[in-house]
């Protein structure tokens, strides 16, 4: 029996040791297949961030000068406090709006569930820049909200360049991060216990407050922590909508690096931001026993089994329960339609900003007035000029490289963790793989910039590709790992016993069986890179300009309705893909039933 490692990726994993008689040792090499991904994340992500943190005490001279400046100056302290407050407020708004939506996404009818899923996912897949543009129009002085206020004879309110615009836009951005863990928890809870409570005489409101709400607490916790962590690291939204009053730590880091070249202050601010996030995540883990990976994977369901879910609630909950009982006796809560109507209304509210850009894209003037003055297709023709098509090409090329590199590295790392034998090593690998997802991207972007500048990678495609690979790895890794976990290792063992080397197993058995996971993972990797704005804003410049960077320039330096055209195209693409996917599934169903 002669076998030769023939697979193209033979160099990436050692060939299995051959022993006479066809018997093989248990493949242990999977432990090593995670090494490339671990190396990339360590060198490209962890190292720059660590060096950035170091710089906060070495720049311009060794000492705590930057921290005394940051924490001793009331202005910077305000900036830190404002960052926390804005993030907390946005989290609260997201929770209040997200809970009713999540409830109906789990317990509502098929039609309602589909509508809400689309309403949540459509904005989620739209670039944060395009959404900020929508809010700029909606909340602007000449926007629909102020038009409505003026209809009532009131003075228009300045919302753009105040924390109001930041909170509105940020909570809209965070909503899916709140809803996904909530919905997962609600699905796990089910409605049996509520039915039991009702059968014992509790009214709908009382059963909800005393039984359902406490049971979904882990989902609320997971969602809130996720939202808060992402909110604290917000950069694009405050940079575009916050002005000086709504600026947050993220925008402070950006202006310190890009405008003042004050790396010491920037790194001190980055360290504070990173530390805030770490403290929150660690505190959350201590409190709930949920792991970082679970949190990042947004699997709130697992948390329902945590011990805290059984801890009913305090006095507040009892009081609320009593109040709810009162409501029940009044008969206000009998209506089953009310929660549904509420969820539909919220869903429409979440989806509406998507569509405001359609009329704007046909505006005749540059002004962002709603409804727009006149009609023209000039912004559509502007999109088809080099000024926009070149950045589009750059973005697609970068995203393709990222997809391939992150796809290969992430899949190998997932194999290492799921099929590996050394437990601690696997845990380390998965923590490293998920790190870029939880850690504030703006801090990482600052680290990339400062480190890449030294080795000449700023403003190069290679630099952006490397940075994006680390941001795409968490998605590839978690999706592929989930696919692998559901794959019974017995197939590989069977192949192995028949003499297949590990590369052959991977190529002929594993990869075909987890192909759907890999396709999903690649899609995520592509979108992560294509959509990515924070790193691109830091790293791209004169020679390399990605589409998000171009949009950011258009939003901050020019008033340009071409951005609305891009939003329209993105929506059209998403609709076509979604319809195509639905059609494809329908066809498969038909062909199967035949």
């Amino acid at each position, binding site marked *: 029996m002669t076998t030769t490692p*023939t697979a*193209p990726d033979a160099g990436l994993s050692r060939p299995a040791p051959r022993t006479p008689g066809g018997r093989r040792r248990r493949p242990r090499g999977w432990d090593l297949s995670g090494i490339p991904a671990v190396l990339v994340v360590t060198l490209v992500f962890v190292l720059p961030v660590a060096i950035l943190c170091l710089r906060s005490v070495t720049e311009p001279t060794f000492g705590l000068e930057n921290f005394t400046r940051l924490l001793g100056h009331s202005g910077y302290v305000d900036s830190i406090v404002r960052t926390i407050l804005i993030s907390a407020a946005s989290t609260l708004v997201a929770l209040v709006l997200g809970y009713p939506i999540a409830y109906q996404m789990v317990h509502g009818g098929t039609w309602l569930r589909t509508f809400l899923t689309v309403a949540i996912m459509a904005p989620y897949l739209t670039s944060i820049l395009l959404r900020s543009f929508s809010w700029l129009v909606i909340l602007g002085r000449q926007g629909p909200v102020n038009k409505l206020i003026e209809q009532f004879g009131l003075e228009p309110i300045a919302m*753009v360049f105040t924390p109001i615009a930041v909170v509105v836009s940020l909570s809209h951005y965070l909503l899916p991060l709140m809803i996904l863990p909530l919905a997962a928890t609600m699905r796990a809870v089910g409605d049996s216990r509520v039915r039991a409570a009702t059968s014992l005489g509790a009214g709908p409101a009382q059963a909800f407050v005393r039984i359902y709400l406490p049971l979904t607490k882990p989902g609320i916790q997971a969602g809130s922590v996720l939202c808060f962590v992402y909110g604290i690291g917000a950069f694009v939204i405050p940079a575009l909508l916050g*002005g000086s*009053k709504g600026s947050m730590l993220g925008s402070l880091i950006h202006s310190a690096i890009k405008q003042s*070249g004050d790396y010491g202050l920037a790194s001190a601010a980055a360290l504070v931001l990173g530390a805030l996030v770490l403290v929150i995540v660690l505190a959350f883990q201590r409190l709930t026993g949920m792991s970082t990976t679970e949190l990042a994977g947004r699997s709130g369901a697992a948390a329902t089994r945590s011990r805290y879910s059984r801890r009913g609630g305090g006095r507040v909950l009892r009081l609320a329960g009593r109040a709810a009982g009162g409501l029940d006796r009044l008969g206000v809560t009998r209506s089953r339609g009310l929660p549904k109507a509420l969820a539909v209304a919220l869903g429409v509210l979440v989806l509406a900003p998507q569509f405001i850009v359609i009329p704007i894209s046909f505006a005749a*003037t540059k002004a962002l007035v709603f409804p727009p003055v006149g009609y023209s297709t000039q912004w559509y023709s502007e999109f088809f000029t080099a000024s926009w098509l070149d950045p589009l090409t750059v973005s697609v090329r970068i995203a393709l*490289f990222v997809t391939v590199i992150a796809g290969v590295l992430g899949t190998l790392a997932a194999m290492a963790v799921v099929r590996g034998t050394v437990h601690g090593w696997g845990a380390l690998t998965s923590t490293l793989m998920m790190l870029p997802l939880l850690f504030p991207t703006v801090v990482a972007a600052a680290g990339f910039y400062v480190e890449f500048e030294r080795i*000449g990678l700023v403003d190069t495609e290679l630099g952006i590709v490397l940075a994006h690979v680390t941001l795409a790895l968490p998605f590839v890794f978690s999706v592929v790992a989930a696919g692998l976990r559901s794959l019974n290792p017995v197939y590989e063992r069977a192949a192995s016993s028949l003499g297949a080397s590990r590369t052959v197993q991977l190529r002929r058995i594993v990869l075909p069986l987890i192909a759907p996971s890999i396709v999903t993972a690649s899609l995520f990797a592509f979108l992560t890179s294509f959509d990515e704005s924070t790193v691109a804003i830091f790293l791209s410049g004169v020679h*390399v300009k990605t589409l998000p960077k171009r949009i950011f320039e258009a939003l901050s330096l020019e008033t340009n309705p071409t951005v609305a055209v891009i939003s329209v195209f993105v929506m059209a693409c998403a609709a076509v893909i979604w319809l195509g996917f639905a059609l494809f599934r329908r066809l498969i169903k038909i062909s199967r039933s035949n």
Partner: protein
Amino acid sequence: MRTTLDVTRGRRRAGAVLAAVVVALGSLTACSGGGDEKGSITYAGFGGTYEEAVKAALFDPYSKETDVKVLYDSSGSDVAKLVQMSKSGSMTLDLIDAEDSSLAQFMAAGILQPIDTKGLDGFADPSAVTEYSVPWYTFSRNLFWNKDEVAGGLDSWADLFDTKGIPGKRGMVALPWGILEGALIADGVPVDQLYPLDLDRAFAKLDTIRNDTVFFPSNGDLQNAISQGEIAMGYGNLARIKSIAKSGAVPLDYTWEGAVLSVQQLVIPKGAPDGPDALNAIKYSLKPEVQKAIMDKLGYTPSQKSVLDGLDAKTRADLPGTEETASDETFRIDVDWWAKNGADALKRWQDWQHA
């Protein structure tokens, strides 16, 4: 059993994949390193409509004539950043568009290349030429207002600081030049006694309008916000104000009272990848047709005497630095003071911004 054919096929396939990877990485690095070879200069200006105007007036004809490609960067006013870039040896710019005060700080930091100004003459004000810089026009920052929001307009810096008498959101670029001086004028300091700047007094005066003012990171952001009707009045570059007024987005007006004058200079930083081509571009900027085009597009005053002398009184009446637009409160930035104290003032300004 595998046959030899299988093995060679496998090897061939591995070879093909390897080749594909090499080609892909090669194309990636080729795309990245494109701009630095000879025949291309990177110019740091201010983005947006300013960049469009400079491109049309200067660089498009220059590129056409010389085949030198021009790349645009918008970090022209980020003085501290540019100084840091030069000192860390990572200078990627060839040509920087600098106003008086940034020039002073560049010179103080010693990051500029001396320019051979032989053969460059005909300046209306030869004293503006330095060993490191060539003046190409004179510009101004003016007080402006949205006519829908501020019916009576502004007449002085005191008006801009009078938040009770003239309510409304103020907008300025987060650059201290002229704003610190303007705050002192509003506080009653006579224009001829501005320097040395009393920073404590200036910041105390600025504190009084902090809640009514938005400071933007760049001229482009400010222009954007004014166009969207978010800003009722403020202090900004005249070319931007005129550009908004012309676009018709909002009805905008400006005054020459309290206008701050500055000479705009072109400079070449030390370590510029393509200094010779940058120098050629500077020489090109002094051509009468370029000077005329800049005046038409930006509304700024040519530095060449021959061009300036050929203008009629009507044109001069709307140009910065002419006798026709001089006013009691019009002033120039004191370059020497900013060269000496600029770095400290900037740091204090940055801290104040975040307060």
